[in-house]
């Protein structure tokens, strides 16, 4: 149980430090254009990586399971401009249904 509280304390401090490093170290100073264009692209790259890992990853292996159907539903729903809550709960419902039927 102590290790759980250690994880919480470390992640709280590290997350705050990561968020604050830029604004406290260089408030008001513009980034170089090259660095700025990398930063603009980071969210796309990391979000795509998170989607892939959360959809196919199981520990250190890749698996195809019911989550894939949920993610596919989310992809189509987002593309058809469904509201966020529909996308998210629909993906869970599709995944649950696929597990129930399999």
């Amino acid at each position, binding site marked *: 149980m102590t290790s759980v509280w250690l994880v919480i304390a470390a992640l709280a401090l590290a997350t705050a430090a990561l968020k604050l490093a830029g604004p406290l170290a260089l408030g008001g100073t513009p980034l170089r254009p090259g660095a700025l264009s990398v930063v603009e*692209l980071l969210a796309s*790259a*990391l*979000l795509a990586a998170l989607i892939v890992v959360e959809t196919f990853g199981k520990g250190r292996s890749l698996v195809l399971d019911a989550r894939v159907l*949920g993610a596919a539903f989310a992809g189509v729903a987002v593309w058809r401009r469904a509201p966020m*809550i529909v996308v998210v709960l629909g993906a869970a419902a599709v995944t649950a249904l696929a*597990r129930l039927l399999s």
Partner: protein
Amino acid sequence: MEGTRERRRAGIRRGLPFGIAVFAISVSFGVLARPVMGPVAPIVMSILVFSGAAQFGALAVLIAGGGAGAAIAAGVLLNARYLAMGLALAPSLRGRAPSRAAFALPLVDASWAAASRGDGTFDPWYLVGVSIPQYVGWVLGTAIGVLIGPRLGDPNALGLDALFPAFFIVLLFEEVRGRRRLAAAAGGAGIALVLTPLVPAGLPILAAAAAAVAASKMRS
């Protein structure tokens, strides 16, 4: 120029649908975390860490039987993007250090993307506004998940593990505009797929940043 209160209020309106979705996701975090962390720790974690990626990442390591060190490493790597987001946000913040810190701490993915003006600058009050419903939803949802969890049975049978990728799919769809961002996303997904079997959890996601560096060399 609109007043700060109007900007913040507009941000809160923009953040409400995020807050509702984040609520659903944090209910699943509370449900999944309780058997591993007990009833109080998941709620404290949501109050202090306020980060879906890091909390789910660390929880996944603990569920898999990993130690505190591995769980912390996974969470920090998953949140390393905040360093880049903070660097991008920094030039848009004015004032003394405490005031800049107050704008930077509520930073989360959806708020960062929503507050981007598209020219590399950000609207700080709007960013804070978008974060408010998400923070409320995140903490409240965790508490409810912890409370109802023991009565639900197997959370995976309810598809709760599919909530998280779906949330990121929504964020990515709003983010990907133009050829370079599409290339960064495709590259990031490819890197994560290839590295997942090869390196510890969290690293594939950090390594995906290389795709952003590569895509930045492309002409827009």
